[in-house]
């Protein structure tokens, strides 16, 4: 059983929902990332989404755009993420890791090399923001043969027909984008989310996780009532931004933010 599947199965038995933090690797500098990942796990993370910095993050709002800029300024490359994950895996062999980013860095190193290196480092899932299932025909089988879950987005604008296609191709979990917009935009509407998740439930057994617009314990708790998992990114990354000059304080702050969500979700 894959780590992601195992994790959701454990959570279901415990009657809990998944808390999935996102951070951009290399932000504010590559040497901090592994420490942040361990801190997130200590604060209650069930899965970690590790962002691959990209020069043109078209689906991201200003918070994650700036995180990419900081990481790139420090020279963070996709291949450096594999080293970070290898290091992380020396002490944590159970927390699933999902790489999240844009296609071009993967195109540049090549699909085969990407799948080989990701699998070897201990990556569990891959979410490529600008690659819908229709464009994944070539990389899809490679991910599968390397036991890497291909995770896809579903949006409020996704038609019933497309949702069925996405459910058929998706693995690991479905990432439901809670609002029309970029990451870190407005606050989501939990009733609206519930309404969109209902038809997806009928199409798939995949866990449904919700991201975009989750800022604090209150929104996290609301969403976790209707979803199987809660994804939080900009709320964490904005803490990294605020303390980029004092990186030694960041891990503690990330734990505080995530703890609040964990507590609210488990209450």
């Amino acid at each position, binding site marked *: 059983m894959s780590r992601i599947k195992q994790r959701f199965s454990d959570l279901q038995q415990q009657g809990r929902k998944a808390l999935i933090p996102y951070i951009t690797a290399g932000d504010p500098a590559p040497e901090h990332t592994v420490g942040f990942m361990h801190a997130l796990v200590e604060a209650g993370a069930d899965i970690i989404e590790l962002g691959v910095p990209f020069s043109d993050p078209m689906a991201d709002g200003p918070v994650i755009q700036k995180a990419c800029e900081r990481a790139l300024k420090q020279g963070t490359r996709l291949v450096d993420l594999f080293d970070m994950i290898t290091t992380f895996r020396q002490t944590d062999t159970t927390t699933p890791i999902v790489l999240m980013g844009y296609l071009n860095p993967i*195109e540049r190193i090549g699909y085969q090399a990407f799948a080989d290196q990701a699998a070897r480092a201990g990556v569990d899932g891959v979410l490529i923001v600008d690659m819908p299932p229709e*464009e994944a025909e070539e990389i899809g089988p490679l991910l599968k043969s390397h036991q890497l879950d291909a995770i896809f987005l579903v949006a409020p604008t996704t038609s019933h027909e497309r949702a069925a296609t996405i459910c058929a191709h998706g693995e690991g979990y479905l990432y439901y984008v809670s609002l029309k917009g970029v990451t870190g935009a407005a606050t989501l509407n939990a009733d609206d989310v519930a309404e969109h998740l209902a038809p997806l439930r009928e199409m798939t057994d995949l866990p449904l996780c919700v991201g975009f617009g989750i800022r604090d314990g209150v929104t996290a708790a609301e969403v976790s009532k209707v979803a199987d998992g809660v994804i939080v990114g900009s709320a964490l990354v904005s803490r990294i931004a605020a303390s980029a000059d004092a990186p030694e304080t960041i891990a503690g702050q990330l734990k505080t933010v995530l703890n609040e969500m964990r507590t609210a979700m488990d209450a």
Partner: protein
Amino acid sequence: MTVSATVSNTASQAGTKTRFSDLTQMPDARGHFGPYGGRFVSETLSFALEDLENTYASMRNDPAFQAEFDRDLAYFVGRPSPLYHAERWSQKLGGAQIWLKREDLNHTGAHKVNNTIGQALLAKKTGKPRVIAETGAGQHGVATATVAARLGLECDVYMGAADVQRQKLNVYRMRLLGARVIPVESGTRTLKDAMNEALRDWVTNVDNTFYIIGTVAGPHPYPQLVRDFNSVVGREARIQSMEQIGRLPDALIACVGGGSNALGLFYPFVEDEEVAMYGVEAGGDGVETGRHAAPLSSNAPRGVLHGNRTYLMSDEAGQVSDTHSISAGLDYPGVGPEHALWKDVGRVNYVAANDDAVLEAFRELTRMEGIMPALETAHALAHAKVLAPTMRTDQHIVVNLSGRGDKDIMTVAKLDGIEI
């Protein structure tokens, strides 16, 4: 004066099997031009693109839509644009006869309006009250603001902050037309960043907003529909060549940033094997310096940006490279996916013209023919200066004079050390 142009490696990467007639059948149903193109977007935009694809498919062969488009091109844009024989300049260059397809005489001063008229008609069909656009030199922004004013649509134009500085005249033109110009401060503050920001706007306001993309790039169906709307240039040039030259020209030349004016001219000639084609990219300080915007002639790697796969200037880690060009309109790291395919099959020769050669061509045409071209267009003219002397005087070159140079007067004056 240094060497003005570098001939690219046109060796076919996709083999020689593709017949030129096959090139008229592109893209395929999923928007692919061979290995290029496609629809690489985040899920939120998929429905809007499917919607646009369906709307366009139903309009494309609708005689009423075509008639409305043709009427607007005739009475609002002022088409057909003339094919002008630049006799004095041809004589000076001492080789082939140079003919200029005068897109600079269109309303708003460039070929860009052909496309914005077409997309505005589509926007009207969809009933969306707001349009957005990205712009580099400001020509597409002006053309979008113009059609928005005419149709009473709200209009926001994203423009890199660096371009806002170097194209002040067009910025004010857009504002006079009622558009809001939003300077983009992220990244390199040029065209690619404007496109990122326009996509972010669209993903947020997709319910009420139509995105008018200005070039033959972006996710399917944009490369196809922008090409189709601009193909009026080549259709006219073909007819005019037969009438004025008595046969098809021997060569076509057009500048290539995203590549919309080039595809517009080239597409109706694609099966005419005897017609050579030259796409001229921005060589900047020289392709060999790395400071350029010439993904095709520098043999950049394949990559994915802004919804399509194409030749894309990026570093070894896949981060998109900074580009450099004297012309804001060509300052883009990628290129339309159809051009990428046409390079691979060897249909078009892609070359680059450096900034200094471009300026020389700009000045020369202005002084010898009384026609002041846009700096983008001057790239095509720079290559005409290279090519014409290698040809006989009874041979003919058609150059797409894609835009007029008024907007660039400040840039050129500054280079001359003059404050206006």
